[in-house]
């Protein structure tokens, strides 16, 4: 069954570009601004929205997203509130959060709610292969997918297994460490990882963590089916005051990023 996610990757491929996946912390700094920012990033060219359900102790996230989550929690963001944001978003939405808020909310209730509001799937970074099966069973039963992450520390055999188990796409973590725009990724290493992963899976591959600027996207766009930009978007809207300014700041950044996703004609011809 083709999901809205498959269609987004297919459309990007047809346009000779890698798909742009934009991460936003839901409810950051408040629900009104968040709604405006999400509309803005979709309007400006994000193909897929990765919507972060704020969690106060995010082990996979750096200071930018951790601070965004704290702001959202402080302004009263709830999982129910995030679900309503999903329902109002005009691009495919992948939820991104940690296992504890989901378990406390109730896994089944979470999956049912996410599906009802129109989410495509959920990424849970602290559920590795070893803990996956019982969680994924419930997610799947409710018609959602679970993309999984591979990282620079993942051994080849494990990478093959994750790529085979991952649904929708495989999320390649571009560098050692956590999310954040502070340090640039080693794009040649990312390309090598993408090439390796490409031999292991026929599904799309998207690269994230540290991908924050147009040049990073230009360096990997011919190798990846998608790129994921998070902290840079959060930085952009977080420094703007008020919903209209936050939306405008996010729009400016996303337009630039989207332009960078377009492959050069020669490369596009040979892209996967």
């Amino acid at each position: 069954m083709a999901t809205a996610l498959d269609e987004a990757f297919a459309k990007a491929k047809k346009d000779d570009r890698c798909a742009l996946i934009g991460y936003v912390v839901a409810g950051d700094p408040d629900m009104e601004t968040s709604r405006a920012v999400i509309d803005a990033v979709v309007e400006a060219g994000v193909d897929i929205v990765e919507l972060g359900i704020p969690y106060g102790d995010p082990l996979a996230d750096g200071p930018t997203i951790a601070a965004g989550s704290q702001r959202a929690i402080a302004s009263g963001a709830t999982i129910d509130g995030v679900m309503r944001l999903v329902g109002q978003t005009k691009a495919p939405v992948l939820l991104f959060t940690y296992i504890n808020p989901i378990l406390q909310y109730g896994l089944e209730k979470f999956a049912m709610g996410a599906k009802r509001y129109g989410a495509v799937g959920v990424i849970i970074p602290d559920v590795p292969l070893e803990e996956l099966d019982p969680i994924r069973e419930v997610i799947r039963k409710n018609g959602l997918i679970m993309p999984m992450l591979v990282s620079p520390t993942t051994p080849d055999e494990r990478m093959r297994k994750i790529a085979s188990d991952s649904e929708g796409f495989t999320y390649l973590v571009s560098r050692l460490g956590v999310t954040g725009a502070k340090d640039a990724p080693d794009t040649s290493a990312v390309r090598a990882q993408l090439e390796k992963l490409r031999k292991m899976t026929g599904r799309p591959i998207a690269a994230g963590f540290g991908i924050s600027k147009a040049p990073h996207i230009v360096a990997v766009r011919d190798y990846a089916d998608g790129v994921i930009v998070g902290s840079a978007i959060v930085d952009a809207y977080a420094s703007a005051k008020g919903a209209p300014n936050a939306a405008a700041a996010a729009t400016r950044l996303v337009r630039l990023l989207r332009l960078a996703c377009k492959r050069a004609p020669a490369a596009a011809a040979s892209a996967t």
Partner: protein
Amino acid sequence: MHKPDERGYFGEFGGRWVPEVLVKPLADVEAAMSEAFADPSFWDEFHGLLSEYVGRPSPITTAKRFAQPRSATIVFKREDLNHTGAHKVNNTIGQALLAKRMGKTHLIAETGAGQHGVAVATIGAKLGLPVDVYMGAVDVERQALNVYVMRLLGATVHEVTGGTQTLKDATNEAFRVWASQCDDTFYVIGSVVGAHPYPFMVREFQRIIGDEVRVQCQGKFGRLPSDIIACVGGGSNAMGIFTAFIDDRNVNLWGVEAAGKGLNTPENAAALAAGSIGVLHGSRSYLLQTNEGQVRPTHSVSAGLDYPGVGPEHAFLKDSGRAKYVAVTDAEAIAAFKACASMEGIIPALESAHALAYAEKLAKERGEEALIVVNLSGRGDKDVTQIEKAEAEAMFTEAVPA
């Protein structure tokens, strides 16, 4: 030996709930640990350092005045007499030796009260390994002496300003740093918490406490204790003293959590008494959290107990009924702290004072045949300023009518 299953679970508690980037580093630690644990030369080196450098075995002391006028015999296990002043050093020596064995060149650690940070800084200096310690800004302020000591020992102390600025956030930061430096860095976790294999590994390095108590009680009293009491934050000193007695059903095991300003207030740090099951720092255990699954801010007068989670093996021991968990308030701990100082000439860590406070209660209920061992997990020099401050605040409160 009670071991977790192959996925690191004690019953339904434990596991390895971590981002993918940390899976391989944890598997590497597990493999190195298994190999080292099977190698007598590793244990020879470990026990050699505990003997020559730490000063083990730590003695037991009968607390004749603290116990009075109660009739039960109360015995202190004197982890406060270890080099660096707490049980923490046992575990850090074990992990630092493992780090060297793995070829790691750098140690990182989180710390709350600072005792674990001091212990890692100490063993880093001894073995020539650079050390970075992550500590919440609130704890940096309330444990200034230990911060100075860590720096004196050559460690770099990083003040963590995110979240509640206490041990929980220091732990988050250490995990994040480890994710970016796992090639050459070993993360020395300070308690029986975190993802597998840490809860098991730390327990095995701390079990020396209970192993010694067993021999010492049999030697001095000709019998095993009736009750063992230890404070529980993450729970390493408690697991360290409990482990040797798990199969002795006649030995009652008591874990004492921090009730802070009361279990009926939000200002406590009693994960087992007031928490629910969740996932924090890579393992499934009891946790203080909101209905939305956000980790709740905690409070304890003792920085070392000011942690919203607890080691997964404690969760297992609680649910299986093998150990009982109780909680005492800040005020009760402070009173026990002072009583121990003035009646026994021992200034205990505020953490240990929680165990002492419960020992006083338990001694009232037990007859003279009872032999109660309290794990005096550390010394209280670091807490003297905190006590002074608490007393000054209390005096101020008393002086100003409501």
